[in-house]
Every structure is written in C-alpha cells, then in structure tokens.
C-alpha cells in the first residue's frame, strides 16, 4: 500500500521532470535563436552566407546538406536493412543467427567517432576510386554526378550514414519479422508459394514496422554529428551535385561552436540551426507516424 504510493509519486515526479526538460530545451532553443530571426528574418533559412565579420548568416547549404545526406542514407539503407533482416531470420542457419544478430547489434552501438575515422580513412578513398570517379566519368552528364568528386563530400557522408543506420533499422525489421505468427507462414506455404513469395507476403504483413524502422533511422541520420562532420567536407556552398563538399546542420554546429562566442550573432545563428533541425526532425517524425497510422488503418 505504502510502497505503491511511493512508486506512484516517483513516477509522476519522473514524468514531470522529463517533460520540464523537454519544454525547457524547446524554450531555450527559441529564446536563444530569436535574435538571428529578428536580424535576418526568413533570409536566415533561404540564403547561403556564413560571414562572422559582417555578422551575416544564412544556413540554406547545411539545411540542404542535411536533407541530401539523409536522403542518400535512407535510400541505400532501406533495401539493405530489409535484406539483412530477411537474411538473418530466413536464410542463415539458426546456429549462426544469434552471432550475426549480435554483430549487427554491436555495430548499431559503436561510437560514431569510430565510424567517422573509418569513413575518412577507409571508406572515402574506396568510394572515391571505385564509385564516385567512375560515376562522374561515365555519367557526369547527369547533374547529380556532374561535379568532379573529392573523397569527402555529401555522397560519402550519405553512404557512411547508411552504414551507421542499417543495423538499427534492420534490427527493428528483424524483430517484427521473427514475431510473425508461424500460423501465417504456414498459410502462405500451404497456398503453394515459393519461399521468396512467402517472404514478400510476410514483408507486407510487417510493413508498418518497416516504415517505423526507416523513419526512426531517418531521424538518427539527420541528427548524426561527429561521423558526418569528419567526411562531409565542411564547406559552405549550395550543392550542385551529390559529389559536392557540403555541410550539415549538426556538423556546422560541431565545427563552429568553439569560436562562436567571439561574435554577437553566431551563437543565435547556431541555435537557429538547432531549432530548424529540431523542427525538420519533428516534421519527419510526424509524417512517419502518419504513414504508419495510415498503413495500419488500410490493413
């Protein structure tokens, strides 16, 4: 009786504290960034400048960089995460299954600076030589590949991000796949489906989990900082191709905060970036939830 009460009170305290912190963060984001919006208005979002001397800031390039790298990451990661989940739960012998799953879970938990180092010194040169240069040389007439690539650029960041989020997205899909009732698989096989047709049907059954996995992964990709900052190039320009060097909002903040306080408006500008990142993330999550819900209603 008494311990139940204590539990209840501490639960309420915990919820109130958490909510307070979240609201506090949002308030301080708004509070600390409003000077930059007062100064530049919508120009803070729509222009491409980073000029501390004149205190002129417009963060369109990192905003585009965040969207582009996330889009690259998600288009690579989605099919691979699904394949990996099917591979882990259908194809490999059950003795090896937990080993593969453990490796995948371990990959999901590696600190991102490790991915950054590996991305910079191993992935970037390989991608440069075997993917980007050939794409540029043969398909350079397509605007997407038009810029002569350097090893670090938006594409490298996107690929690295995809590698970082695959294990995470895949584990959500795998959980859902292994939780499919045996009953349903039997039904599918009893209709004379081949193994591949059964897999296809079962993927339909767990499609809301796939959406959820992909959107949660997208949220991670957009917020990822350290690894991206190490391979994205960190240059303030509007990308003309995915082989351009660029910035993302989080890599901009990570790179610029050490000298920000020397300027009057740079701290508000960085807060402004954070607020935009927060808002875009919120929108992505809302779209994701909406998609998941629509899928669930339809089925």
């Amino acid at each position: 009786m008494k311990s139940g009460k204590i539990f209840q009170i501490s639960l309420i305290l915990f919820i109130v504290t958490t909510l307070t912190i979240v609201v506090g963060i949002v308030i301080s984001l708004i509070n600390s960034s409003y000077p930059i919006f007062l100064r530049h208005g919508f120009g803070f979002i729509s222009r491409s400048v980073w000029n501390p001397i004149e205190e002129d800031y417009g963060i369109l390039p990192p905003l585009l960089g965040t969207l582009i790298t996330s889009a690259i990451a998600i288009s690579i990661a989605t099919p691979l995460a699904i394949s990996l989940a099917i591979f882990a739960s259908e194809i490999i012998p059950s003795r090896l299954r937990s080993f593969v799953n453990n490796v995948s879970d371990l990959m999901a938990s590696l600190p991102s600076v490790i991915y950054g180092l590996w991305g910079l010194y191993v992935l970037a040169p390989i991608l440069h030589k075997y993917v980007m240069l050939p794409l540029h040389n043969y398909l350079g007439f397509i605007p997407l590949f038009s810029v002569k690539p350097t090893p670090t650029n938006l594409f490298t960041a996107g690929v690295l991000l995809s590698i970082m989020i695959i294990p995470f997205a895949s584990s959500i899909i795998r959980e859902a796949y292994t939780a499919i009732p045996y009953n349903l698989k039997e039904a599918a096989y009893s209709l004379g489906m081949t193994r591949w047709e059964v897999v296809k049907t079962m993927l339909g059954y767990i499609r809301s989990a796939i959406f959820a996995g992909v959107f949660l992964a997208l949220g991670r990709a957009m917020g990822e900082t350290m690894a991206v900052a190490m391979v994205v190039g960190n240059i303030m320009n509007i990308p003309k191709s995915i082989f351009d060097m660029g910035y993302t909002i989080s890599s901009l903040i990570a790179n610029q905060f050490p000298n920000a306080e020397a300027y009057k408006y740079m701290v508000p500008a960085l807060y402004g970036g954070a607020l935009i990142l927060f808002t875009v993330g919120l929108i992505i999550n809302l779209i994701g939830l909406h998609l998941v819900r629509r899928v669930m209603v339809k089925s």
Partner: protein
Amino acid sequence: MSLVEISNLNAWYGDKHVLKNINLEIPRNIIFAIMGPSGCGKSTLLRAMNRLLELNPNAKVSGQVKIDGIDVYSDKIDITWVRRQFGMVFQIPNPFPHLSIYDNVAIGPRMNGLVKNKSELDQLVKWALEKAYLWDEVKNDLKKPASMLSGGQQQRLCIARALALKPKIILMDEPTANLDPVAASKIEELMLELKEDYTIVIVTHNPQQAARVSDYVAFLYMGELIEVGETSQVFTRPVHKLTERYVVGKIG
C-alpha cells in the same frame, strides 16, 4: 484408385516418433474424418500429406503419400505443385490480416499464375467466396481488411482462399475448434455442401463431430492408426476395444 494413398508413413520430431507406420486410403468425394485425442498426431498426419511438415527443421518423414497416383515425396516433384493439390484450413482462422478480403482469396491464384487477367481473377474470387458461403456477407466489403471479419467468417474466408487454387482435396485441421457453436455448425453445413465436388479430410478431437459430418473415419491413437472404416460402422460396431472406448468418451 483412391484419391490419396498413404503407405508406411512414419514421422518424427527429433527422436520422438509421432506417426507409426500409417497405411490409409482416402476415397473421392467424401468427408473423411481423422479423430483421436489431442497429441495423437492428427495435425502431423495432415502436414505430412501436403509436405507442410518440412517447414519444421526438426521434423522427419519416411514412407509414401500418393495423390492421384503421384508420389508427393518423389525427388522430381515440384513442392509448390504438391501444396496446391491440397487446400488447407487451419485450427486458428489465419487469413492474412493486412490484406483485403478480395486479396486473401486472390493471392494464391495470382502468385501461382492461375489466371490470365483481372476479370478472370474477379470471377474466380467471386466463385470461391460463393462456394464458401461468404459472398453475400462480404460482397460490398471486398476491399476491407480481412481482420474485420468475425471468427467464423474468417474461417470461411480461409476456405475460399483454399478453394481458389482449385485443389483436389481439402485438409481441415480442427476447423471449428476455435469457433462458437453457431459459426461451427455453419462450417459443418458448408462441408456437407462442398462434398459434392470435393474430397474433404477433417481432423477432429471430438468424436461427435466425426459422427455428424463424416462418411469415413479413421481413429488415431498415440501415433498409430487403430481403426478405419465407414463412419456408421465404426461408431456402431467398432472392431477395436480402444475405438469403442474413445467413441463413448472414455478416452480423450
């Protein structure tokens, strides 16, 4: 020639011997009941016929099952063909909940390439739903998800799904065990109707159900086939003592 001929059929889960040298013939256009207390191997026997058993990596089978004279365990045979010859209805109604009522019936013919175009498929779906006594209840809701149907309707949808592949025989594994009595008796009526065109094997742990619906009955006990015969015969003059005790409800 009987539709299905089973000879010297054995099955194991790991070391556990669950079907012991079964020999059985199933004639055409009848309802054939396999009855026996739970755990005696009825479901295993059904799944050994359409080779669903081998989805379980621990399961092993030996012996022969022939349908229309063709050995389903032959090396050369296409396993998807085997499964299409046997429509299967399960103990728990298991329509694909994420698919519409229409797609639940259409998915089999679509994947197996049994229809040429949409209107042929529409016709086939309608035919199967009518056969399963479900058409009138769902004809305006074909696009709605199967999960919105009641348990009995879901089970009839599963029957339609099986029929749409035009199987030679329908295997039903305790199809009414999870339904209320009204829904259950609807399924039993449906079985009697389907018998005109199909052969039905129904597994049941309930001897009364076997007596009500079947023409032939087999009594399975601890993996052994104890007795087979015409239902009237087996229930009035059982040859084996165990059968007699089972039908009066002393086993099970």
